């Protein structure tokens, strides 16, 4: 579904991505893991042409993204942002309806879709549709963000640190919901996180980025036995107390 083939991305004198190649099959969830600056977000943004690579090929559904209209591509690609980025001047319902509205769906279809999605992410439309983003908790905002990304039923979903800003309890709650939704919808998902535990909990495959290179790409189980230093560091971080290993433990 998504293919990276020898992708280079250069910012100034630094190689943000260095000869990265991978494939995400339809219905798979790929987690890109790595430290800050490893190139995870850059890789994500190449998929819907928010950024353009300097060398190499990025293709979605077998087509080079550079040959696609970026606006149309983005409207067919769900995107969940690091800081949610809900539009503060729109109600929850209008936030979710953004892409369908851009696609000029008929009003009744939009309304039905918004209600369906809000129910899907556990925010009943009757209670939440007319609320404002500032009236919601962080977890609720992130759910609205997911609903917004899914609104036009895109085959591909990109998620940039979607649960990064949440408290650990909420995060684990949302992980469970994410798995529930994904088992029903079977989207092709690329997820960016710095948290190996989150990657293991959500992804079918994990790619580890280190200084712009893809140093490992495997299933969560396969990755545990990896001898790669960058991978070991990420696993160590999982258990050294900075990131709680289990719900209800750690910093609480």
């Amino acid at each position: 579904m998504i293919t990276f083939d020898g992708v280079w991305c250069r910012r100034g004198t630094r190689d943000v991505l260095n000869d990265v190649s991978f494939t995400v099959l339809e219905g798979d969830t790929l987690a890109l893991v790595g430290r800050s600056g490893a190139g995870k977000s850059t890789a994500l943004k190449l998929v819907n042409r928010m950024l353009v690579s300097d060398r190499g090929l990025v293709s979605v559904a077998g087509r080079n993204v550079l040959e696609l209209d970026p606006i149309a591509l983005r409207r067919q690609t769900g995107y969940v942002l690091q800081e949610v980025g809900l539009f503060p001047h729109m109600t929850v319902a209008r936030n979710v309806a953004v892409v369908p509205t851009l696609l000029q769906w008929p009003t009744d279809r939009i309304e039905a879709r918004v209600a369906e999605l809000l129910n899907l992410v556990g925010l009943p439309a009757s209670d939440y549709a007319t609320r404002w983003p500032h009236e919601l908790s962080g977890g609720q905002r992130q759910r609205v963000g997911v609903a917004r990304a899914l609104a036009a039923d895109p085959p591909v979903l990109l998620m940039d640190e979607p649960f990064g800003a949440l408290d650990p309890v909420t995060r684990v709650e949302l992980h469970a919901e994410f798995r529930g939704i994904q088992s029903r919808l079977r989207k092709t998902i690329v997820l960016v996180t710095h948290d190996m535990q989150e990657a293991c909990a959500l992804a079918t495959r994990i790619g580890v980025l280190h200084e712009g290179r893809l140093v490992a790409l495997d299933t969560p189980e396969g990755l545990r036995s990896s001898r790669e230093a960058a991978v070991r560091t990420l696993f160590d971080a999982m258990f050294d107390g900075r990131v709680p290993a289990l719900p209800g433990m750690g910093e609480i």
Partner: protein
Amino acid sequence: MSALLAFWASHAEEFWRLLGQHVLLVLVSTGLAVAIGVPVGIVAARRPRVGAPLAGLASLVQTIPSLALFGFLLPLPLVGGIGARTALVALILYALLPVIRTTAAGLLAVDRAVLEAADAMGMTSRERLLQVELPLALPTILAGIRVAAVVGVGTVTIAAAIGAGGLGDFIYRGLAMVDPTVILAGALPAAALALTLDGVLLALERSVGRPGHARRLRWSAAGALVAIAGGIVVAAWPRPDAIVIGSKNFTEQVLLGELLAQTLERHTTLPVERRLNLGGTFICDRALQSGDIDMYVEYSGTALTAIFKQPVKSNAAAVLDDIRGRYASSGRSVLAPLGFNNTFAILVRSADARARGLSRLSQLAEHAPGWTAGFGFEFLERQDGYPGLASAYGLRFREAPRVMDLSLMYRALAGGQVDVIAGDTTAGLIAALDLTVLQDDRQYFPPYDAVPVVNAATLLRHPEIRAALARLDGRVTEAAMRRMNNAVDAEKRDPAAVVREFLDALDRGV
């Protein structure tokens, strides 16, 4: 306070008209500044390299004092001239800066994550601007519009100097008449207007600062648009071909403008429009040349020296012939003199004049050695002032003339501190303090005969104007002018009423 209420009551119609003009100028100029400034602000936020110089230019304009800006604009074609058009141009220039600044600042302050979300949703840059950036920047932009509108209320008062109308008319008239009541009659409502506008726009700004404002905003925007559009229609509505009368900005000139206006109203059927208090000689002359006004009263000596930059001449008839020719070559006609000559006047107490049989300046030399003179600084220094006077009439006073303030001179003479002063022939205080003007029998002082100067094309189109104004030929004597000046300056009476009484008497043949 009661004087103020009485003034408003007696000028109610004028008051509402000026207030209406004021509001209209502010609304239209602010509306147009928004129409220009918001797009410029968007460019400034998007492309700093283009926007920064534009914003810089706008702040440069902001530093020009408004009166100076009006002065720069006056001689320009298309945008210049006196009246609301020039004022609008200046007002728009002033309003642009706050609008551009806040638009750019509001757009730049939109959260990066929100912008990224908009891009990631697949919004085109136009959709992003209209659906995300502008709505989020709106409270900031409205703050800029509020500043522009409130500053506009103040600047419009100054625009009265170039005939734009508005409450500044009262302020300038009050300044010319040294009457605080009239000043307050314009200044208080202008201040109230500024505060009201500030309050209304602040409320709007607060209400759009909260989410859920879309409907309210649409109503307010629609309301503002209707008001502005209505204003433009009213302002641009073709008026019947009114005869426009101008005047400079001091009491005597306002009276003379009123005199021309009322004479035309009495003896012709032409609609008359008053553009009184138009700043100085330069502005009136410009306005007459450009056709913004059809006539005003000028003084022959002023026309010769200030307008046509010629050397002083002392023969009154020669001066009139000279300026008549010069005006004619630029399409303007000089009508017959009204009758008074507003020149320097050497004054003595009437009691002294009677006791010594003194009526002519040539008789003064005989009495001068026993008297003390008080002159204004300018009169003492100017070559055509005291030095020339002394040699023309052979004057030697008891002591060197005292330098005195013009406003105190008349009372100093009446109170006996000095015995001779140099004043104005038409000063109201001459009658009030029982002083006598000594006749300039050697024609030392240049003549300043008051003459109506009229646009020649207007005269041709409406020959009845010449006939109507001919009724004034020579009828406005120095004594009559003095009485009218005194009625306004000392008795604080309304110029229009004073002129009405004068014309009533003239019509009765008194």
